[in-house]
C-alpha cells in the first residue's frame, strides 16, 4: 500500500519556510516598490501610501542610480571577460600533460574561491596600501609609476576588478578543466595526422568544443558580478567620488541606512530584471545547443 499523505508531510516544512522567506517576499517586494514606504512608516505601517510607478520614475532621473549602474556594468563587462580569460589560461596550463603535481596546483589556485570575501577584501586593502603595500613596492622594483589604488577615482574600480579576478578565477578554471577533459583525445590525434600544429588544434578543436562551457561560465559569472557589494563596501565604501558605488550598495544605503524601503525595493527589482534577462538568454542559447 502506498501511503497518500506521507509525501505531503515531507514537503510541508520546506514549503512553509520557502513560502514565508522566498515566494511571498518576492511579491511583497514588488508591492513595496510601488509605495512610499520610508523611515516614518517603520514604526507604523499605516502611514504607507501607494505611489504606483513613482519610485521607478524617480530612479530614471536619479544620477546616483545611473552612476551605480554604470559602475556595476563597468565591473561586470571588464571583470567577467578578464576573469574568464585568466581561468581559461590557467585551465589550459594545468591540463597540459607536461605539468607535474597538477592536483596540487589546482587546489592552490582554487583556495581564494572558498576564502571569506570580507576577509580577502580587508587583506587586499592592505596589499594596495600606497606606501607600505607590496603591490606598489613591486611596481617600484619594476620602475613603473606607483598608483594610489583605492583613493584615486580612476584606479579604484580597476583595483577591485584585479582583486575579484584573483578571488574568482579558480572556480571557472575548474569548470574549464572539466570541459577540456571531456574532449576526446582522438580528435587531437586525428588533427596531428592531418598536419595540424598545436596552435591550429587549439583554434579549430579546443575553442569550438569549449563554446558551451564558455557560455555557461560567462552567464553565471556575469550574474554573480552584477551583485557586487562586499568588495567596495570594505575597500572603498563606494568612493572615491562614488566611483565604486554598486547597485547593491546603493540599494543597501537607501534600504538600511536611510530606510527608504519603497525606493530600495524598486532598485532591487531593477537589478532582478537585469539578472533575469541574462538568465533568459542563457536558457535560450542553452536550448539551441541541445538541438
Amino acid at each position, binding site marked *: 500500500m502506498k501511503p497518500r499523505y506521507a509525501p505531503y508531510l515531507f514537503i510541508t516544512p520546506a514549503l512553509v519556510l520557502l513560502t514565508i522567506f522566498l515566494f511571498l517576499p518576492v511579491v511583497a517586494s514588488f508591492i513595496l516598490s510601488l509605495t512610499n514606504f520610508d523611515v516614518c512608516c517603520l514604526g507604523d505601517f499605516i502611514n504607507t501610501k501607494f505611489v504606483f510607478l513613482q519610485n521607478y520614475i524617480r530612479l530614471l532621473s536619479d544620477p546616483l542610480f545611473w552612476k551605480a549602474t554604470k559602475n556595476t556594468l563597468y565591473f561586470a563587462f571588464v571583470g567577467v571577460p578578464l576573469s574568464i580569460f585568466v581561468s581559461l589560461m590557467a585551465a589550459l596550463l594545468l591540463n597540459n600533460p*607536461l605539468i607535474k603535481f597538477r592536483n596540487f596546483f589546482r587546489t592552490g589556485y582554487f583556495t581564494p574561491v572558498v576564502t571569506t570575501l570580507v576577509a580577502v577584501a580587508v587583506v587586499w586593502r592592505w596589499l594596495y596600501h600606497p606606501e607600505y603595500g607590496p603591490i606598489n*613596492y613591486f611596481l617600484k622594483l619594476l620602475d613603473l609609476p606607483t598608483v594610489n589604488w583605492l583613493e584615486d577615482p580612476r584606479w579604484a574600480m580597476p583595483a577591485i576588478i584585479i582583486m575579484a579576478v584573483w578571488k574568482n578565477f579558480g572556480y571557472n578554471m575548474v569548470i574549464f578543466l572539466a570541459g577540456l577533459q571531456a574532449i576526446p583525445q582522438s580528435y587531437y590525434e586525428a588533427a596531428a595526422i592531418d598536419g595540424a600544429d598545436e596552435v591550429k588544434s587549439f583554434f579549430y578543436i579546443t575553442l569550438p568544443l569549449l563554446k558551451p562551457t564558455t557560455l555557461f561560465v560567462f552567464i553565471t559569472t556575469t550574474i554573480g558580478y552584477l551583485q557586487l557589494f562586499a568588495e567596495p563596501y570594505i575597500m572603498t565604501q563606494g568612493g572615491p567620488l562614488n566611483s565604486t558605488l554598486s547597485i547593491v550598495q546603493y540599494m543597501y544605503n537607501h534600504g538600511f541606512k536611510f530606510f527608504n*524601503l519603497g525606493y530600495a525595493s524598486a532598485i532591487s527589482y531593477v537589478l532582478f530584471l537585469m*539578472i533575469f534577462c541574462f538568465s533568459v538568454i542563457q536558457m535560450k542559447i542553452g536550448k539551441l545547443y541541445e538541438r
Partner: protein
Amino acid sequence: MRDDKDIGRSIWFNILALLGLVVTIIPFLWMLFTSVKSPEEIFVFPPKIFPKKFYFYNYVKLFKEIAFFQHFKNTFIVTIFSVLLNLFLSSLAAFAFAKYEFKGKKTIFTLLLSTMMIPGQMTMIPVFLLLKKLGLLNTYLALILTSAVSVYGIFLIRQFMLSIPDELIEAARVDGCPEFLIFIKIVLPLCKPILSTLGIFAFMGCWNDFLWPLIVMIKKEMYTLTVALANLNSQYATDYGLLMAAATIVVLPVLIVFFIGQKFIIRSIMISGLKE
C-alpha cells in the same frame, strides 16, 4: 630531439604554474605574517614579508579587548544549525519529490526550480520587515530560518535519490516500516556522499555570508565574524596587524574545511559544469 624540446617546455610550464601559485598564495602569507608583526615592523619600507620577531599582541588584543570570541561563537552556532536544518529539511522534501507520486508534484517542483534565478537581495527588504514585526532581529533565528532550506539542495539531493532502487523502499514497506523511518534508516544513510558535498557548500556559504547578517544583526554582541571584521575595518582602519589577525581567524575554519573536503568540492563543481 623531440625529448629535449619537451624537457625544456616542461620546465617552462612548471615554472609558470609555480609563479601562478605564488601570486595566488602571497596575499594569504602577507595576511598571516602581518598578523604577527609589531607596528614598527608593519610600517617599514621596503616591505618585508617575514617578521623578524613574532609578536602576538594583535591576537591578545583581538580576544581580550575586542571580545572577538563572541562573534566566533555567533557564527559557529548559526552555521551549525543552518547546515544541519538545511540538510534535513531539503533531503526530506527531496525524498518526496524523488520517490512518491502525488498530486501537484510537477507543478510544485517546477515552481521551486524557477526561483533559483531570483537574486537574494530581492527578498531582503520584505523579510527584514517581517523579522522586525516578529521581534526576531538580532536573534540567531533571523539567520537560521532564512537559510534552513535551499532549493538548490532539494534539487541536488533529489537527483541523487533517483538512483536509489525502489525495491529497497518497497521491501521495507512490506516489512511494515513507517514511511518516516524508511527515510531515516534507509534513504539518508545512502545519501551520505551528496549530503557531505552539500554540507560543505552550505557551511562555506553560511560562514562567508555578509550582506544578510549585516542587515539583521544590528547589536554589536550579535555580529557574525564577517560583520565584526567589517566593523573593525572601519574602526581600526590603520591597525593592520589587528585587522590581519582578525582576517586570519575568520578564514582559518573555511580553509581547514576546504583542505579536508577539497576533492569533493572540486569534483562536484566539475560535474556541475559538464551538465550544462
